[in-house]
């Protein structure tokens, strides 16, 4: 199942740092995601967009990582939003009661338009 390994790709769109996440996020790798996001926010990014379109599935460890990053962003008065929470990933957000815990945009384009 090599295709399910966690991938984290950073890119920039104007003032927004876009973090595209792919594969599976579970308790074996969620820490990597948390560290990457915390480092970005600590380095002074003030708008971080996490694109979850490539995620196959995630567990509560991923929610923890995202919540920690969100809190970090709030401390830094940075914006932290998610986009493309789709299909099974969306169902898991729903089951965890976490759809309301984040600002979630339907697509990357929409998120960038709102952040820009």
């Amino acid at each position: 199942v090599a295709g399910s390994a966690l991938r984290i790709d950073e890119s920039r769109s104007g003032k927004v740092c876009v973090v595209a996440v792919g594969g599976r996020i579970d308790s074996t790798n969620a820490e990597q995601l948390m560290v990457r996001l915390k480092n970005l926010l600590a380095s002074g990014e003030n708008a971080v967009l996490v694109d979850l379109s490539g995620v196959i599935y995630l567990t509560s460890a991923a929610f923890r990582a995202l919540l920690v990053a969100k809190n970090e962003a709030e401390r830094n008065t940075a914006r932290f939003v998610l986009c493309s929470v789709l299909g099974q990933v969306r169902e898991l957000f729903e089951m965890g009661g976490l759809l309301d815990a984040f600002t979630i945009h339907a697509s990357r384009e929409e998120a960038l338009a709102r952040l820009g």
Partner: protein
Amino acid sequence: VAQYYDPPTCFTIRNEIAELATLRVGLNRFCTAHAVAGKTVTQLQVVLDEIVSNIIKYAWPDGGKHELSVRMSASAKSIQMEVVDDGQAFDPLTARAPDHTPPERRRRPGGVGIHITKQLVDDISYFRDHGCNHIVLTKRYDGSGIQSQEN
């Protein structure tokens, strides 16, 4: 009572998060052998990660090296996973629904994970026996692989 056809597949791992990879690969193989549909496999993977990571993090407060085991079995209609550990008694069914406290500040382990798990399986039960916690998770599936074996 569901009839389970094959001898169960059993995995024993150490209480380290990295060991979950062994279970993930094992569950994938098990599901492939039983022709379980992709979405059901994913849901079982989430459940296994939630339950086992919770045990690894909280079952042995004093740390140290321990083992836990997962027994997987399949009937024509359902997949069953029984997770056994000899840590402190903990019944996940009594865990509360998640509140709005950030997870890193929650005292009670496993709120969100257990809440998700309950929704992903058709049955979850807990018992303590001979100093061990047993969590039995049952999920129905379309067992076309099993039926062709019977014919």
